[in-house]
């Protein structure tokens, strides 16, 4: 079937097969390799992107369901110059090590912050528990996200 969608603000029109995932479309077709994969079973969160502002694991999202949707990936979140407040907070708080979970983590965190989550450690941990990070032990990711919630609320 043919789908029309917006990816990072650009129109995309494609003929897709039933099995093709959003992750396939992004990485293999559109060359948006900033989105990573770690399992393809919905368990790691590395492939998280925003679909109509909601966080979605793109490995499980069929393209066929995306007609008319708006998709934002890490490339789309990144401003033309510099970094977003959340990205900068990850840099400043040492919240990325190998970086492989980071694009997915930042997309999930962006959605979480936008959802109006309170500046509360347990709420942040709960909200990001679908995203695995094997490197950081999570302290510094929580700190980065917390700082952005506080900043945006200020």
């Amino acid at each position, binding site marked *: 079937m043919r789908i029309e969608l917006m990816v990072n603000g650009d129109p995309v029109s494609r003929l897709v097969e039933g099995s093709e995932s959003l992750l396939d479309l992004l990485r293999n077709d559109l060359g948006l*390799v*900033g*989105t*990573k*994969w*770690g*399992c*393809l*079973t919905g*368990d*790691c969160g*590395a492939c998280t992107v925003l679909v109509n502002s909601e966080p979605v694991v793109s490995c499980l999202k069929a393209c066929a369901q995306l007609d008319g949707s708006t998709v934002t*990936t*890490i*490339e789309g979140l*990144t401003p033309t110059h510099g*970094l977003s407040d959340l*990205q*900068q907070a*990850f*840099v*400043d*708080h*040492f919240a*990325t*090590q*190998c*970086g*492989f*979970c*980071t*694009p997915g983590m*930042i997309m999930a965190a962006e959605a979480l912050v936008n959802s109006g989550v309170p500046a509360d*450690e347990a709420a*942040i*941990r*709960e909200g*990001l*528990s*679908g*995203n*695995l*990070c*094997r*490197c*950081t*032990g*999570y*302290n*510094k*990711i*929580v700190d980065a996200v917390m700082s952005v919630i506080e900043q945006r609320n200020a």
Partner: protein
Amino acid sequence: MTATETRVVGKRLPKLDAPDKVSGRIQYADDLDIPGMLTGAILRSPHAHARIVSIDVSKAEALPGVKAVIHAGNVQQRPFGYGHDNLPLKDRKVRCVGDEVAAVAAIDEATAKRALGLIDVVYEVLPAVVDPLEALEDGAPLIHDERLDIDGNVSMRWDFETGDVDKAAEEAAVIVEGTYSSPLAAPGAIETHVVIASFDRSGHLTVWSPVHMVFMYRKELADTLGLDWGNITIKQPPVGGSFGGKIDIDTHDFICVLLAEAAQRPVKLAMSREEEFIGTRTRQPIHFKLRTGADADGNILFRDTHVISDNGAYNAWGSHAMLVAMNTVTSLYRVPNSRMRCAVVYTNKSYGGSVRGFGNPQSTFAVEQQLEEIADALGRDPMELRIQNANQAGDVTPQGLKITTCGLTQCLESVKEASGWNERRGKMKDRYRGLGAAAFIHVGGGARIYGSDGCGAMIKMDDSGQISLISGSSELGQGSETALAMIVAEEVGVPMSKVRVIHSDTDVKPWDVGVHASRTTFVAGNAARLAAGRARDKLLAAAAEVLGKDDLVIEDGVISSRSEPERAMPYDKAIRRLLLREEGNVIMSTAFYDPPTENQDKGYIGNISATYGFGAHVAEVEVDPGTGQVKLLNLWTAHDVGRAINPSAVEGQIEGGAVMGIGLALTEELPVRVEVGELMAPNLHDYGLPTMVDAPRIHVDLIETNDPLGPFGAKGIGEGGLIPVPAAVANAVADAVGIRPRQFPLRPWKVLDWIQTGETSNVVKGAGRG
């Protein structure tokens, strides 16, 4: 010891690669695309033990889009691994589920997978043995039966003894004896293994692989495939996590190169998550039978160990984990007499590699639980008993480890204080809560297991003032690149922004053993510092000609005279001054740092590391007595880090390690179906990597002892964060509900079973003396 005054070292600086990582611009191996690249796929054995009767690839070869089909019958390969017990593509036998039997390169993934389905392999299934104790029995299936030089299923033995253990046992007032087991586990990096290989038309091979013992990788590739190792370039894309999983060469690396050779096209081979669990290296199960004895005053007298290491089907790095496990048995605390008898046993399952901690979490789990049991038997506080027996600077342990600096006592005091140990241990049983401690010792100044434990470094200064450090080491995400840049900026006397680090291409970088054993900051850091100092001296010599002074210093990029500070010039001008003239010259320097250590002798005695890292943790748990669920409420950690080059990075290592340790302690394991030797659930859903809600906030205290040999005082800290966690959690569970965990992970059903069956004391002599 006081720390040298520094301008860059010791600061919390962001990682150099962080901006590109947070914006998704970093390209990992699977993000790379090469024109004409094919997709590879591997056909793996479904059987744990079988003879390969025949392989027919004709249908696969005939499939349009297939460019190469390889198997043992049509490639050149030699055995590899310790004792040369493994082949990239198996020829006569498969010895574990996942063994590589054939491989395909095709124009796309779908075609490659379809081709795998067209390969006919006839197996004659053999009885398999997955339990190492059964593998040791008479009449057990022989896994390497064709190898007459192998003793049954015993791959190797490690035997160590100092002092007189039997006499010490007679004299001991308290003896504790128990058996402790650990599971098959995985490194669990979020990025799976991905490799790309390409031959150019002159026959030069380039491999892109996120490996981190890269020079050995190249040598082993050449040796096994009969290639000229001088005609191979290895490029290391950024590593999406390793924890030892990507340390060195794996079977798929050879296969990728064989496919590229057969197809004469670039080939990419990416492991799926399932293949990552089944077909790449694991943390091997280890069974410890340990006895510890102490005198009536609480001085540890001896440790006596029988160890069975469940090697899996072949020897990879895991076969050598005993090396590190032994350090803990002989040298954590002052132990005058110790004995260790280890058998590394082949079984028909996934084989062990080098996973963070490398035998030490398993060893510490046994040793540190017995420490607390001895204290309880003597009616002593376990923390006090630890402090009483703690290693001290200046000690040489019976295994020959030279303890140069030692913050163990401070670490113990720190976690004792932070956790409210005196007020709370043993006093929360009514709420099924408990506190448990564990300490560790681990190599912190390299680990000499080869002839050299060295690392090369080169500095190049160019006309813009840019300073390039070309290091033999590799960045895995841990931030070593940033730490090395900080060391160079400090040593030369320039701002951080002037330093770039190049470390990912064997055509460019100098030799290094590789990233392992928590050695990079120490060994590569010392090499970088030496090279930087030499380059700085050349720079100052060039400036001396202009300034007419020889008492020059360089600070923040300005060279000036100590006696006449107005005589000054920017450092980049000095570089140009030397370069842009008749008979000019470039500023370059090299260094090779090999720590002053020794290989162990045949009795495993020798000082393998230039310094040792120490640390202590206290865990607080709450146990649900109805379900056996263990909830980790708090983890306090204190680590002797020598000196923190970048405190944020050091905390990141400890926090990340600690959460890996929490996974090991509570959830992570790969259960194996006993009769057939296959993994029950090779997926991330069941494996049990800790999520953000499983892990509490980790409390970290950095203790600085300023090691005289470390670069600016630093010690290696890459592994320590996880080592004591399973032991500390087990001790906390013992405090909470009075049982003695004999294995990790502490899954609820096991804990419930122990509560119900009353797995309590291991004290065999002197119980209840206190």
